[in-house]
């Protein structure tokens, strides 16, 4: 793993898009997290389905991977097919599957590490953080032609990280409490020493030098050890955006992927700006605003210094990238995203509303799973 070939950038189909979704496995009794990942994976293996479903750090999670797509239509179709396969397998085992960035009331002390060497190592290294890491994110992969393009894309997309957070925020509850955040998941991620953002570098060469330095210090062995919000993935060629909470539905996940793809199209084709150091100066503030307040949060634009409501900044961006979306065939989808910002509710709001109506987090988890599995939530 750790020889220099790892940092050889393998180019991938430019602007291709792929999605990873970390999902919650619930029991059907009280809708707490279950521990049946191994059985679920075994059953899925027998049944067969497109894409891939893999284990994650604890036995209460699985990760669903799409294949690589050129656009939204085939992506959403495939995600739905995988969802139906996972749902069917889960129901045969009397399990439920849910989206959302956090489970509303599970206790991290109940979690068990999925028994692979890597996950056992993570438990040994990070201690209780490994079990607390039972939070659920979506990753979007965007294909890049070369390493320099990947570094550029990662730098420019950093400015839009608050968008990604606010649009996907779906972890208002953790450990049985309302956190007051829209996305509390990222606070959990922030506890890891190698989380955060890509360093301010300008070329693949500079980036490789940074990586080698970290490796020589013995801090990392591979790119996998960085838990950055956005990271280049040299072995497959794409840039990976990792700040999303897993949305409540696969449809929403595909829409968010289409948004990143159109943005990337804009960045790589229109080359709108040079990377700006102030994006990183303001990074944590803007990120916090998005986590805490979602689309109602404030974003300070590093390029002009203006303060804007996050929702407005997203709408402005959508207008700017409309031609790119048109070129990718996702104009209608992103229009829909724009109107969803105006009309609401976001996933986090939906979850809070569910709690307000039902007054029970068990019900919230149940409705969360019914929604993800494509079943009608009984009595919302």
């Amino acid at each position: 793993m750790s020889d220099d070939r790892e940092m050889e950038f393998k180019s991938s189909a430019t602007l291709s898009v792929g999605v990873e979704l970390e999902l919650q496995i619930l029991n059907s009794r009280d809708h707490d997290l279950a521990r049946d990942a191994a059985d679920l994976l075994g059953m899925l293996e027998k049944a067969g389905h497109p894409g891939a479903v893999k284990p994650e750090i604890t036995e209460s999670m699985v990760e669903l991977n799409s294949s690589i797509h050129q656009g939204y239509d085939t992506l959403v179709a495939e995600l739905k097919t995988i969802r139906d396969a996972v749902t069917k397998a889960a129901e045969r085992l009397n399990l439920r599957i849910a989206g959302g960035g956090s489970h509303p009331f599970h206790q991290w002390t109940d979690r068990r590490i999925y028994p692979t060497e890597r996950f056992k190592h993570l438990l040994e290294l990070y201690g209780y953080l490994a079990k607390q890491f039972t939070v659920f994110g979506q990753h979007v992969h965007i294909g890049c032609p070369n390493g320099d393009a990947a570094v550029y894309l990662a730098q420019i997309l950093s400015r839009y990280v608050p968008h990604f957070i606010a649009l996907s925020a779906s972890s208002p509850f953790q450990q049985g409490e309302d956190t007051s955040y829209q996305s509390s998941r990222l606070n959990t991620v922030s506890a890891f020493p190698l989380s955060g953002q890509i360093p301010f570098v300008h070329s693949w060469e500079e980036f490789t030098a940074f990586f080698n330095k970290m490796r020589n210090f013995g801090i990392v062995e591979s790119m996998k050890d960085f838990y950055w919000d956005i990271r280049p993935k040299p072995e497959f060629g794409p840039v990976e955006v990792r700040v999303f909470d897993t949305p409540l539905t696969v449809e929403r996940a595909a829409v968010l992927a289409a948004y990143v793809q159109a943005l990337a199209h804009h960045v790589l084709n229109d080359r709108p700006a040079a990377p700006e150091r102030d994006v990183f100066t303001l990074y944590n503030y803007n990120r916090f605003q998005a986590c805490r307040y979602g689309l109602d949060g404030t974003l300070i634009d590093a390029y002009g210094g203006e303060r804007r409501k996050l929702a407005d900044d997203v709408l402005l961006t959508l207008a700017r990238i409309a031609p790119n979306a048109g070129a990718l065939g996702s104009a209608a989808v992103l229009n829909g995203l724009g109107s969803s910002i105006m009309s609401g509710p976001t996933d986090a709001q939906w979850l809070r509303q569910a709690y307000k109506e039902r007054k029970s987090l068990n019900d919230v988890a149940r409705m969360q799973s019914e929604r993800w599995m494509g079943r009608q939530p009984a009595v919302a």
Partner: protein
Amino acid sequence: MIRPELRSVPDVRLVLQRRESRPTRPITMTSFLPTFPLPTNPLLLFGLLLLAGVVGGELAKRALRLPRVVGYVLTGLLLSGVGLFDAKIVRESWIFVDIALGLILFELGRRLDFSWFRRDPWLAATGVLESALSFALVLGALVYFDVRPIYAAVAASIAIATSPAVVMVVAQELKAEGQVTERALSLVAINSVIAYVTATMLLAWIHHEYHAGWTTVLLHPVYLLAGSLLLGYLASVSVVGLGRWLGKSERGHSVAALALVIVTVGLAKALELSVVLSLLAFGVLSRSLDKRHDLMPFEFGRIGEMFVVVLFVVGGATLRMDELVTGGTLALVFILARFVGKSIGVLALTYFSGVRRGAAGLLCLALTPMSGLAISMVQGTTSMYPEFGAHLAAIVLSAVLIMELVGPVAVQFALRRAGEAVEAENK
């Protein structure tokens, strides 16, 4: 059992005399002191049983590395072995057994998920097949060994049931969770229902055997089944309604459910209905009638645990080591036929449920325990026809004794081996 005593005139008089005698007793210097020997009372009994059980369970765990349940049973055996546990105390403490069984059967019923059976019909089929096969094989084997068919049939119906208490308690002790645990509990729920319904139907035969009138032969099983179901239904309507009225409160709901479980146990006894069937029906229906999800999920937790300890101590005390000798080979035949029947059923169909390899074998082990439920089924017949009960007890109870000790170990092994026990990990 109690009614004849109350009816007999001298007893009642005695009771009355005792009551009247108190105020008229001359006041002496020591009149505030208790008289010896101390009269037992249920509180003292419950506390002492609990205490003994806790110590016994812990010793079994520490010294023998056995599940605590085994320790509770051994404590009971020991207490009765040294003569501290006479028939009267067993009778008095039976109320705790009923409450404990009530709580366990209610929880088991709540786990019975019919929507799962729709999605995985093989699971339900497994439950029916293993029940049928264990009944058939035990019946056949006992008849082959010259047991009269009527005894053999009732014994075989008892053989169908796996002890819900043992499986639930061991699973809780190990904090086990996963497919083997969940499937084992569902199979237990299925076979408990089938066992009880079968045994109730066989009552008609027993009545006929003892020349009861035709009305009794026909109506008693019907009364038991329909009455218990109705009682369970009313209890679940009440708990759902009460839950809705109380609003979403886990504490409120568990107290309400606990109260209704005890009321239902009490009513079932007062109405001469079946505690087992009423509480199972209560559990199942309280889940399936709750379409709007008004009830919070709840557990009886510590309170349930207390009753369970006493359940096993008393259960152990009703069994006697010398029964092992009288039961002898017949007990082994019974156990073997039952195990083979259950195993064939489970091994034949579990594959189709699509669970991982090896799960079926572990399920066979997890279905072995017998305990309080079986004892209570034996007692059900004893109370009506003591002679029949005595015969039946001779066949069944020695097997129960063995399986009450071996069963928990088998369940513990199965759940650990399945990787579903928490303590198996890095704790």
